[in-house]
């Protein structure tokens, strides 16, 4: 088990290293000069050269990368034009918003986390629940209703569902305030009421996939020999389905959930835009639009960290679910 953990951690670190190198090289691969984007007005050659100096763009590539990584780990001095001392984790300075990238990330990250994590819990419960019910009631109207629901969810666009939810619950029924972000720590009730529509919209969209997947998995597991053994022992149905079938059927669901949650934490642009919330997704899109390279790089790196982390969690869950995995 220790060896398993060590190997997973090593491979995660390796992946992150590769992503950081790649996103760093993006600076140089992009067709536009990174500096012109950072100096919006009054650009003369001297000023450009000064910015280049400050950014360290005249240094060798490896030195630049080392400086960037050092900034993340220990913080570094960026020079007066970039706000001076930049504490760890330092992700550089944005000339577009004139602030440290770390600060803009710190502002939007809680929003994305608050959208994605409760939504993920909701869509997992809903999706797996629906899938189980329709597998166990296969061929009945309940099965057909669950499949119909999941098909609807999968075929509707999020901004459409979102708009309908907004019109019904906010503007017509006035049950909920216009979506906005309040810190969970400040006011849990306002936090929830401001985000609940985003959760529901995301959950409706995602639970469809989970319902279909877990239904198919459950049906396959129910025909396994060990399920027949469980019944032959005289176990009652809840134990057969819950303890024996569900645990075996859930494994692929965990994999997909890891990918989805990891990806969503990197930003849910459409959800954020639909509900007017400022999260990672909008920050990234705005950064791309304005050519704000330090911010782009930071969002890419953070999104990668989430995907890698989520996959590590998936691996650990796998090991917890299936003892055979611990051997590998």
């Amino acid at each position: 088990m220790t060896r398993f953990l060590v190997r997973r951690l090593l491979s995660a670190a390796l992946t992150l290293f590769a992503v950081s190198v790649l996103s760093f090289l993006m600076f140089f691969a992009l067709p536009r000069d990174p500096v012109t984007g950072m100096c919006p007005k009054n650009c003369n050659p001297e000023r450009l050269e000064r910015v280049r100096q400050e950014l360290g763009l005249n240094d060798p590539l490896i030195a630049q990368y080392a400086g960037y990584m050092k900034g993340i780990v220990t913080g570094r001095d960026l020079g007066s034009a970039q706000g001076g001392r930049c504490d760890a984790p330092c992700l550089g300075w944005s000339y577009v918003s004139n602030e440290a990238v770390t600060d803009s990330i710190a502002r939007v990250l809680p929003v994305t986390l608050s959208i994605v994590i409760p939504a993920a819990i909701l869509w997992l419960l809903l999706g797996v629940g629906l899938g189980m019910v329709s597998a166990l009631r296969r061929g009945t109207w309940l099965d057909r209703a669950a499949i119909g629901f999941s098909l609807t969810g999968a075929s509707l666009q999020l901004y459409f569902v979102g708009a309908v939810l907004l019109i019904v619950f906010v503007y017509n029924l006035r049950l909920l305030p216009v979506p906005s972000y309040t810190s969970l720590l400040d006011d849990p009730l306002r936090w929830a009421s401001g985000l609940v529509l985003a959760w529901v919209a995301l959950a409706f969209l995602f639970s469809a996939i989970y319902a279909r997947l877990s239904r198919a998995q459950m049906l396959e597991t129910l025909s396994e020999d060990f399920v027949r053994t469980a019944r032959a022992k005289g176990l009652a149905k809840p134990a057969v389905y819950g303890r024996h079938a569900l645990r075996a059927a859930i494994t692929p669901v965990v994999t997909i959930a890891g990918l989805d949650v990891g990806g969503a934490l990197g930003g849910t642009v459409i959800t954020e835009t639909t509900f007017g919330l400022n999260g990672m997704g909008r920050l990234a899109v705005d950064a791309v639009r304005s050519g704000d390279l330090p911010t782009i790089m930071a969002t890419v790196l953070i999104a990668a960290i989430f995907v890698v982390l989520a996959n590590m969690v998936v691996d650990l869950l796998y090991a917890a679910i299936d003892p055979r995995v611990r051997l590998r």
Partner: protein
Amino acid sequence: MDSPEPARSDDRPEPPTRRAAEEPYLRVRDLRVHFDTTDGVVRAVDGVSFGVDRGRTLGIVGESGSGKSVTSLAVLGLHDPRRGSVTGEISLGGRQLVGLPEEEVRRLRGRDVAMIFQDPLSALHPYYTVGRQIAEAYRVHHPRAGRREARNRAVDMLGRVGIPQPARRFDQYPHEFSGGMRQRAMIAMALVNDPALLIADEPTTALDVTVQAQILDLLADLQAEFHSAIILITHDLGVVAQVADEVLVMYGGRAVEHGSVEQVLRRPQHPYTWGLLSSVPSLHGDAEADLVPIPGNPPSLINLPSGCAFHPRCRYAGRNGDRSRTEVPALLPAGEPGHLVACHLPAGERDHLYRSDVAQVGVAR
């Protein structure tokens, strides 16, 4: 053995008093299991009767699709009533199982009737320790037993089926067991509630030949100890010869021959049984000309051949006109008491044919 039997907290009925008819522990009469499919009705079992007493072993023999496994699942009440219909009579210790509510059948499963499956690797849950699965089987039927008691009982059972260091093995997973050990664990799980009837569905098919004999010996020893009735489902006549007292030969969902091992294996009456015997290699025969396979394939259970279902594959089907093709042969006494056969050939002709055509070949020698 000398470990105290834990007090049973269940409501097992008193052993039924022997009636004049000497009812065996398990009595199956005219069992029919039919499945409705889009292609038609599958008559997986079509009117089979047999009985097994405690301490005795019945071997059910046949090719794949002959209905032997379906029969055993019916005895356990494991068929989905929405997809198949089970009719006839299955009486277990005097209690009629067909038509009993699912909850009552469930309480019998694993306690009065237990089953050993063919492939212990897929029949054990890969995610739970072997010991936990055995303890679970015990606790279902002993709801008042604590975790400790169930564990002790499971360790005890693992020891009794010949697994070394049972207390350590308790906490291992099925993939950490060898094939033979897994089947032993499966047997321990089946016997943990001391069932009166044990159904073993091809218990040695997935195992090495060397391990097969050990498992069969183990079953015989445990039967002597627990005094249980055993139904052994197999296509291996060698296994039947080794452990069974009686044999039921099935073909196309029906019984074609039934009798003691001595009768069926030494003086077989049905051409299908002859075919099975001729296709088993013998140590004493000529290695080149030893085996005679049965021509053709097992029949479709949806469109069973008319008359005797075996007639398209039978060398002797033409000997009595059209009868084999048109008339289903009844299972009738074949001479010796207890020996039954379903074949239109006259008894004298059967004896003659067996002696001249079959007795020289394969294991039949």
